């Protein structure tokens, strides 16, 4: 979480320069499949909730360009996903899936968490 917060501004700027990822035709359904196939779930969980191995990435994911720049250039705990491994189209679909995940409830409305 902290790492993403630190890197997000720079990643976002880099994404604007690269500008190769388009969200126009992105499919959340395809993205859900890609999210599993590329192993995103392994550290972030099937619904992006995060855990001991990776931060929460949904709901409210970072913008697509920022996500792209981060994934391509990360040098932190998360290994990079180069375009040769994860295409821009698949990445846009994954982002669309993350965007489609509904906002979680306020914990005060969940009896077990009150």
């Amino acid at each position, binding site marked *: 979480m902290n790492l993403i917060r630190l890197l997000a501004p720079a990643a976002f700027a880099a994404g604007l320069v690269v500008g190769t990822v388009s969200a126009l035709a992105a499919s959340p359904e395809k993205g859900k499949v890609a999210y*599993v*196939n*590329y*192993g995103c*779930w*392994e*550290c972030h*969980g*099937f*619904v*992006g*909730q*995060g*855990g*001991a*191995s*990776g931060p*929460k990435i949904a*709901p409210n994911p970072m913008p697509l360009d920022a996500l792209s720049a981060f994934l391509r250039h990360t*040098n*932190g*705990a998360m*290994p*990079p*996903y*180069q375009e*040769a*491994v994860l295409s821009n189209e698949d990445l846009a679909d994954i982002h669309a899936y993350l965007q489609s995940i509904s906002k*979680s*409830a*306020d*914990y005060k409305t*969940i009896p*077990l*968490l009150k």
Partner: protein
Amino acid sequence: MARKHSSSKVDRRQFLTGVIAAGAATAMTPPFASAAQPAVKSPPSALPPSAKTAAAETGTPRELARIKGIPGSDFMVDVIKTLDIKYLPSNCASSFRAIHESLIDYGGNRMPEFLSCMHEESAVGMAHGYFKITGKPLLTLCHGTVGLQHATMAIYNAWCDRVPVIVVGGNDLDAAHRPPGVPTFHAAQDINAIVRDYTKWDDTPVSLQHFAQSFVRAYKISMTPPYGPVAISLDAGLQQEPMKEHGEKPYIPRYVPTAPPQGDSGAVKEAARLLAQARNPVIIVDRAARTPDGMALLVQLAEILQAKVIDQNGRMNFPKTHYLSSAPPAVNNADVIIGLELSDFWGAVNAYTDNGDNEGVGKNSTKIKPGTKLISISSVEFNTKSNYQDFQRFQVIDVPMAADAQATLPALIEAVKSAIPNAAKAAIEKRGEAARKTHAEIGARTRQAAAVGWDASPVSTARLAMETFVQIKDLDWSLVASTFGMSGWPFRLWPMEKYYHHIGGSGGYGQGYGPQGAVGAALANRDLGRFSVSFQGDGDLMYAPGALWTAARHKIPSLMIIQNNRGYHQELMHVQRMANFRNRVAYHGADLGPMGTSIMNPDIEYHKLAESMGWWAKGPIKDPAQLGAAIKEAVAVVQSGQPALLNVWTQPR
């Protein structure tokens, strides 16, 4: 090696000759032969056993009754009984048959009571978990070579976790007299060699008096901080032969506990000065509290200083509900850090990032400010060995003390009280107020984080933790194992305040410990009237699931919830990471994770596995809405005295 005395009327060679002769005689008489029946010549469906095989399988050891005097192993039982050892988890073996028989017949199978185990690793793991609840060690017997080889990983776990276990391995030392074949395959010159690197002490007694001294010494060494496992090689001949000490029993040395080592007074004073003058002191604890008194002392030290406490959870050191209980980032702004019984001080104040830098080695960075003073109190400094690297990376410490932390805390607390200047007291109080506020904020953030993915299927680990807790919160509960796959949710959400609310982990991270340690701890909790609950990894369970049968066989109730993420998830992530670094798509085949890391196709039905061994069980539960009712039912089963297992499909972490 047992000495051979000319006065012995029946030595072991004669005894074995008798056994073989008796067996051969038995084999030569067909059990259903009848002269009235005509002989029908037809090809046999299976070849009959040879006389030698038949003797080995069916021979009656008639000579045993002719061994005069008191068996040596009876005296060994007398020695063992002086040490208040309640249980003996063990997998039976021929090399300790004599002491086995003495324990259950001469010793009445009490103090210790024999617990049937299906793997030596399970036996040691049970002893490990039992100690974490009671503070008392158990004895385990194992076959000297192959049995001890099975036990080794669990012994290493106990070593890393500073847990005493008394391991006795049977061995047939006398090459001139031991039976040929299998018993000789299973004999060795020095069976303890395989565990010497991760036991505190070992011995090979050659007489009964030697055994008495060795056993009491082994117990004493294992129970002197830093605690640790010990090993005794027990000659089969010494067990089986009668006592020959001129008709007199050897004496049994009295056990007197050794006082744990306290920190040097000068070093304690210097540590107190640094802590008292610190603007932001932080306490890090791993295995600091050996008993509930240790927890109380830590609370006292923390409150005097209003210092945040980071608990690495090797033991239940500090109440999770206390406002000074903090997360690891608290070290970032510290100016003085005291580490109490840390297994990895370097890792507490530095970061390692597995990012492929430095030609794949990864990146190291510090987490603390320049000039931060470091204090350490650790008894492990007395007992470091060379081969296995459990001592971790070297960290320079400003005030290092080779001492037991809990034993040193009373002196340190008094020294800190004296060292705090009056002028600093207001600032210290203010520090405490800030900590209260931070603790409340983190609590709310943690609960909000738990709400993310609350209704997801497979079940989120946060929800699993809380669905479980709500069903046990009014019981006297004890978390006897929690997989790392739970993202620490029980530690983050459950109000852990008592020493037995959790018991830490395996120590050496050797897989398979979870169920074994949990059964051992549940045994201790059963006797104390507590409710045991654990979260187990799916992969972890499959290393030695026979521990489940032992729990059912000996009526050890506990609620075991399998956090079934259908993979060796840590390794799954490692292989994925490697593929990413190498710019390759990880090959999954039909699995969810990279090939070789998933446990699926087919899925293991852990509930059926448990049912087959006498447990009440249910699963697989994938829908979080069904979880509460299932846990409630399982809790009722456990309260009735039966073990219960739930197989829950969960999120990976």
